[in-house]
Each structure stands twice: as structure tokens, then as C-alpha cells.
């Protein structure tokens, strides 16, 4: 008996661990779709720990980027005038700070306008880490449940939609980007009002699938959220059409979009403390966020 157990212990443990993993996968997927993800103990703990770890992962990239920029700037100054190098460097730094402040001010102004437009409070957040798997596109932000951030809330920048919070812990939140293969957004072409679905496929581009063959979609058109999906408010910029794949045989036509947001350089984002009606319904009973009806006055976009 003992010998049999010795021989079977590896296959037995394999079955146990594989079953356990499958159960965790299934329950995590169910939690994601049922909206209970931010209440799960394990996901919460993992996200809480992952935030500083992912920050550490992105540190070399940040350091090299900033180091490279400074090196090039200083080399230019030295070539121009060695005697005034230190002075010029200081002025350049000051100038850079002013410019940064100007950009920041412009960005904040646009965010303030967005906030007024959508009547939803915005919570600024820093991106602290990116997904390590090439098959999922998500980022981790440094705001979580203690800041009012909950699953199902849209994440934006001043240029457009970033994605959706899919899980949160007290101090961090995981955001699924528009680029993720699981992402789908009901959208409109701003010019012609042609309607369709914007999908991610894991690459750096988005595809816009529209149904009516005669719909007017042209290169250069801007695509915005329609608000019909009940996930994002209406009017948020998604991207610009860069290619239309005309196929007379197919009912479903497709256009390729360049996202409005530069996902490769995401630093600061804004979480809209608002959940659309669809997700509100999905998260009903969680009691962790004001319903969209409370967050949005009647008649506001997306309501």
C-alpha cells in the first residue's frame, strides 16, 4: 500500500494542484464578471502586494528614460558653451519645469472640462506597473478602494479612454486597457454617427467593427464612446480611423483605429468615480459605490 502511494503521489498531487488551479481560475473569472472582484480576499491581497513589485519592475525603464534625456540635454549645453554649462543646465531645468507645469495645467484644464461635461468626479492616479504577460493588457494604478475606486469604473486621460477598472484592493486597482482582447466598447464615428463595437486584440491598435455595409467610415474619422453600452459615458474619445478594410462579402465591416491614448507612455490617469448603468446593474448589491443615478444628475451624458 505504501509502495503504491509512493508511486502515485506525483500524479495525485498533479491532479490536486491542477484541479485547485482550475477552481481558482473559474472562481476568479466568475468574480470578474459578477463584479465581486474587489471583495475577494486573495485578489485584493495579490493586487496590494503586486503594486510595489510592479513599480519596482518599471523602475529601470523610468531611470534610463530620465537619465538618457538629461544626458542628451547636458551634452548639448556643454557643446554650446562650457563656461556657462552649469548656468544653462539650471535654466534648462527651470524651463523644463515651467513647460511641464504648463502641460500639466493644460492637462488639468482639459480634465476639469471633462469633469464638468460628464458631471462625474475624477480621481487622479499614477500607473505603477504593466502586465508581464504578452497576452493580457492591463496596468496597475496606485488608487484603490480607500480612494473610492471600484471595479467597473472608467479610466481616462485628457486625450481619451484608457480602460476599465476590473479589480481593486484598498490601495491599488487593476485596469484592463482598451487594447486587451477582452475589451469591447460601444462606439460612434463622430462625423457620420456610424455605430459599432471597438475591440482590443492585444496589439497596439484597436479594431472598429460596424455592421451596416453602407456606413460612412473614412480614414481620419474620430471614434467616440456611444454611451449605449452602459459602461462608458457618451462622447469620450477612443481613437482615429487609420484604415478601413472594405469587404463587400461580409456583413461585418472592420476599420483599424489608432488609440487616442498613447498606451506606451501612460503615467497619470484619471479614474471616473462613476459606474454606468450596465455595470451598476452587474454590481448591484455590492453596496460599495454610489449608483450612477446618484453620481450623475438626470439627463447627464451616459445616464
Amino acid at each position, binding site marked *: 500500500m505504501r509502495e503504491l502511494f509512493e508511486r502515485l503521489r506525483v500524479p495525485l498531487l498533479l491532479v490536486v494542484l491542477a484541479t485547485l*488551479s*482550475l477552481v481558482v481560475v473559474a472562481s476568479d*473569472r466568475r468574480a*470578474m464578471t459578477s463584479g465581486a472582484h474587489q471583495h475577494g480576499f486573495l*485578489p485584493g491581497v495579490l493586487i496590494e502586494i503586486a503594486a510595489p513589485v510592479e513599480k519596482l*519592475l518599471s523602475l529601470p525603464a523610468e531611470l534610463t528614460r530620465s537619465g538618457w534625456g538629461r544626458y542628451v540635454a547636458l551634452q548639448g549645453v556643454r557643446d554650446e558653451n562650457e563656461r556657462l554649462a552649469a548656468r544653462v543646465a539650471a535654466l534648462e531645468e527651470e524651463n523644463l519645469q515651467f513647460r511641464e507645469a504648463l502641460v500639466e495645467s493644460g492637462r488639468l484644464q482639459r480634465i476639469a472640462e471633462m469633469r464638468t461635461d460628464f458631471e462625474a468626479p475624477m480621481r487622479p492616479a499614477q500607473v505603477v506597473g504593466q502586465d508581464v504577460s504578452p497576452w*493580457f493588457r492591463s496596468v496597475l494604478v496606485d488608487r484603490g478602494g480607500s480612494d473610492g475606486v471600484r471595479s467597473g469604473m472608467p479610466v481616462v486621460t485628457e486625450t481619451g479612454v484608457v480602460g476599465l477598472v476590473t479589480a481593486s484592493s484598498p490601495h491599488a486597482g487593476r485596469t484592463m486597457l482598451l487594447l486587451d*482582447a477582452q475589451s469591447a466598447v460601444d462606439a460612434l464615428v463622430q462625423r457620420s454617427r456610424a455605430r459599432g463595437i471597438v475591440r482590443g*486584440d492585444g496589439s*497596439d491598435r484597436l479594431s472598429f467593427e460596424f455592421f451596416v455595409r453602407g456606413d460612412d467610415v473614412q480614414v481620419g474619422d474620430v471614434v467616440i464612446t456611444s454611451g449605449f453600452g452602459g459602461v462608458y459615458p457618451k462622447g469620450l474619445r477612443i481613437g482615429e480611423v487609420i484604415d478601413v478594410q472594405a469587404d463587400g462579402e461580409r456583413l461585418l465591416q472592420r476599420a483599424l483605429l489608432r488609440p487616442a491614448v498613447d498606451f506606451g507612455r501612460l503615467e497619470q490617469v484619471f479614474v471616473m468615480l462613476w459606474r454606468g448603468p450596465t455595470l451598476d446593474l452587474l454590481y448591484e448589491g455590492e453596496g460599495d459605490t454610489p449608483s450612477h443615478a446618484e453620481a450623475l444628475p438626470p439627463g447627464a451624458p451616459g445616464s
Partner: protein
Amino acid sequence: MRAIATAWLLTAMGIWLVGAASPWVPRGVLPDPALLAAVALGLHVPGLRGLIAAWGVGWQEDFLSGGPLGLFALLQLLAWTATRLGERQLALARAVALVPFTAVLTVAQVGLVTMLASGPRFDDPRTVPVLVLHAIANALAIPFASRLLAAAVGRTDSPDASRGGLRFDAGTPLR
């Protein structure tokens, strides 16, 4: 215990390196450290220790990924099992067998990701180049990962294949 800790540490370092390099490198070009570790464990650490180490390696990847929890733990468990089976049948100690085996394993893993977690869509023509690049990256990296783990674990004499008739006699053994 030492083998498990070593494998986890090496994987953590690999994930850190890949994470640090990913902003500059096109998607798919960087290998998957967890898969490499699971295959290397399959080659060099048999039995319960290897199984647990591979499972833990998968959890490390789960920890830093947006996919469902437990997905990569399951995948690395299966990768370890496939390597154990392949090691006996195909003499994976030889690079000529190990390299294509890892490439095929990468494609199989991505297929499972798609099945279990809405991963990349195979009907999209843009998925295939990334997948091919990723399979090549993993395949090219596995001989080095295998040697590294073998050296770190200190076990360079895994059992010979039980069915010698199915061995490929091609090239110098890795270990």
C-alpha cells in the same frame, strides 16, 4: 527545498528583467520566464519538488498579470508535466529536441490561454506574428535557461530516457 527556492528566485529575476525590458521591446520578442522555468524544472527537477516548484513559478506570473488568478499556475503545471513526459519520450536533454518542443509548448499554452481566459484571437492575422516571435524567443532561450537552472540547482544528471529506442541522436547533450 533548495531546488524550489532556486527556481522561484531565478523566475523572479527573469520576470523582473522581462518587465524592465518590455517598454522598449516589441511584444512577443521577450521570452516567458515562467514557461522557461517550468520546462527547465521538468528536465532537471523530477518528482514532488519539481511539481510544486513549477506550480509556484506559475503563481509568480499570475501575481503580475491581468489574467484570471491560477491560470498561469495551471499552465506551468501542465508545461512541467509535458516536459516530464517528453523528456522520457523525446530525449529533451538534447537541444535539437528541446528547442522545437518549447516552441510547440508555447503555441499550446497560448491556445489554452485563449480557451480559458479570452486570450489572443487566432482568427486575427496580427496574432500570428506575435505568437511566432514569442515561440521563437522561448525556443531560443530554453537551452540557456535549462543550463542556468541545472547549474543553480546543482543537478546535472537527470535520469536517462526509459525508452531509448525513441531517442534522437543529434548533437551534444545539454548537460
